């Protein structure tokens, strides 16, 4: 049976298994219908022109992992930022792990989606926020149909959350191939500030396909710094659908660090609904082998006097393929918009590929929008210069690649995370040099 049919026929069983009476029942039913009509996206669709899901869809994924392996903290410690105190919401094969987590209800909710979807006290919030900003997209619909578990974060107004929150999804290989559909909801009310780190990590060589949806709401003057660490193994694929709704004077930044994984698609959507909003989208992608990474971004400027900054760096070696499709949409009302987009790429050989496509649709007449993309190779003169100073070829290359990407790291506000990313980059480039000075 093909994956699509399998998912559709599993839906009834899923609904029976989870809270069928809940408010979300109707939303899920609508969503599965929508997915049934559209199916998985194909290369015929403009936004999927350079990314084919065929390879990752061919596995016989288990849709609900039955048996869940336990994990000890020491086995997985290295996937956490552990030098500093953090809140943790951890899932193993899609199921919440209370053992590895550190959640709270003390003045704010840093807890579970399953609780938020089923407990009456969250009903109003769920009705107001759940599935309100996902677009009419078949993968998002699929996730909505199976939405059940994930992180639920609600920070009430005037709260500075001092510890970063880590959301980590582990898969253990308890099934031969597993599909996970985490669903996160994050609401940050007026004047509040939160930092979140998200990571998906497979601990097995079995195939894993994660189709994740995260809805993020930044209310008036809310500040959210969101970091995605994508360094999964070669058998794990990720489709990340993130939707961000910003109210006036809010600041939201999303940094995406992509070094590992088989196929990764990031659908990152920002919707600005208020004045003086700031949206930041940054990414470093360093991949090789036959890895495929696709950044598909949208910034929708709907209101005047707002800014957006996009800066994506990509380094592609071996037979790797990268895609950057960045859309900036400026409505007629969104006067005085300042939108900046930059996508710079290094190709390390003849077989690596990058498809980059900036898309600007501007309907307002008093705006500042700029975009630029570059594709280049490492500078031979710079290589020679470094080598005459005793820096070997491999290290010289690594240093130049790091230099190429590192301005994206400057805006990372969690120092421990920055150090970790530095180490991940050094590992990815196969060198043992400290970049951080």
């Amino acid at each position, binding site marked *: 049976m093909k994956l699509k049919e399998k998912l559709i026929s599993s839906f009834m069983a899923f609904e029976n298994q989870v809270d069928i009476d809940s408010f979300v029942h109707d939303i899920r039913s609508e969503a599965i219908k929508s997915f049934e009509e559209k199916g998985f996206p194909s290369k015929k669709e403009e936004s999927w022109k350079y990314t084919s899901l065929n390879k990752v869809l061919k596995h016989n994924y288990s849709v609900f992992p039955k048996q869940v392996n336990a994990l000890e903290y020491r086995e997985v410690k290295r996937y956490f930022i552990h030098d500093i105190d953090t809140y943790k919401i951890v899932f193993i094969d899609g199921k919440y792990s209370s053992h590895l987590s550190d959640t709270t209800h003390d003045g704010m909710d840093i807890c579970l989606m399953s609780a938020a979807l089923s407990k009456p006290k969250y009903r109003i919030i769920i009705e107001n926020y759940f599935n309100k900003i996902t677009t009419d997209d078949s993968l998002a619909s699929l996730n909505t149909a199976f939405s059940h578990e994930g992180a639920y974060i609600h920070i009430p107004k005037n709260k500075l959350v001092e510890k970063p929150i880590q959301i980590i999804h582990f898969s253990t290989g308890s099934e031969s191939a597993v599909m996970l559909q985490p669903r996160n909801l994050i609401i940050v009310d007026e004047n509040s500030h939160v930092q979140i780190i998200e990571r998906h990590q497979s601990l097995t060589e079995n195939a894993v396909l994660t189709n994740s949806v995260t809805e993020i709401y930044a209310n008036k003057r809310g500040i959210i710094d969101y970091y995605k660490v994508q360094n999964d193994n070669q058998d794990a694929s990720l489709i990340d659908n993130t939707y961000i709704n910003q109210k006036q004077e809010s600041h939201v930044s999303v940094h995406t660090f992509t070094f590992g994984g088989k196929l990764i698609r990031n659908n990152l959507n920002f919707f600005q609904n208020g004045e003086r909003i700031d949206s930041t989208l940054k990414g470093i992608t360093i991949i090789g082998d036959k890895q495929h990474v696709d950044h598909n971004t949208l910034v929708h400027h709907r209101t005047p006097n707002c800014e957006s900054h996009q800066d994506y760096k990509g380094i592609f070696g071996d037979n790797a393929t990268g895609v950057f499709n960045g859309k900036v949409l400026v409505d007629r009302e969104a006067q005085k918009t300042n939108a900046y987009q930059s996508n710079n790429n290094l190709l390390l050989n003849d077989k690596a590929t990058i498809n980059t496509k900036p898309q600007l649709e501007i309907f307002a007449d008093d705006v500042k929008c700029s975009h630029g993309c570059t594709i280049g190779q490492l*500078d*031979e*003169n*710079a290589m*020679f*210069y*470094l*080598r*005459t*100073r*005793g*820096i*070997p*070829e491999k*290290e*010289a290359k690594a*240093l*130049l690649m*790091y*230099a*190429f*990407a*590192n*301005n994206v790291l400057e805006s990372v506000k969690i120092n421990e995370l920055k150090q970790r990313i530095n180490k991940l980059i050094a590992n990815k480039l196969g060198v043992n*040099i*400290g*970049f951080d*000075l």
Partner: protein
Amino acid sequence: MLKIKNLHASVEDKTILRGINLEVKPGEVHALMGPNGSGKSTLAAVIAGNEDYEVVEGEIEFNAENIDELSAEERAHKGIFMSFQYPVEIPGVTVTNFMKTAINETRKAQGLEEMPANKMLKLIREKSELLDIDRKFLSRSLNEGFSGGEKKRNEIFQMAMLEPQLAILDETDSGLDIDALRIVANGVNKLKSKDNAVVIITHYQRLLDYIVPDFVHVIFDGRIVKSGPKELAHQLEEKGYDWIKEEVNA
């Protein structure tokens, strides 16, 4: 220390060096002079190991070892340093980080431990004072937005940090005002010892007023056509290169 025998080198099938012979001993300062396009900078690049150039004949020995097959970094590890005429701008790598990486990679290649951080900082402080380099400058990206003088001073700072046996200074004087020239020359002189050697490549006499050479060689059309004591540089300054060309052609 350095022995170049009948060196022929070409780039993209164009022959540039046509039989260079040169011997440099410890403690010596050699000046290589000559008109534009004579092959001076090519010689420096070939000694430093630039793979764009192909050695078609002859050989280069460093401390009695043939270095033709060695990479640029291996030559650096053996103690060869070249100061660039046009130092490359590398945004995103600070001067300090660059120096730290260069020193530790060289030490690694020589079988030594990494230099402890405090020792490194002390060394950086010492050597930057020698070249009158502001500390703020050390946390800037390598050569990015540096003035011509700052770039050259930074080259000599790197030389001071790496303490090479053989330093080749390729047109280090070009683009320097007189004050910067003095600082650079003073730095080179302070680093001079009986165990190391300097090869200065220049068009003009003026750097040689500050760093006095033991030998002056004139390169013309890929060959050393005349060698002499320091007075030869003065002669070239006064009379230009035409008389040399005439001598060669005659």
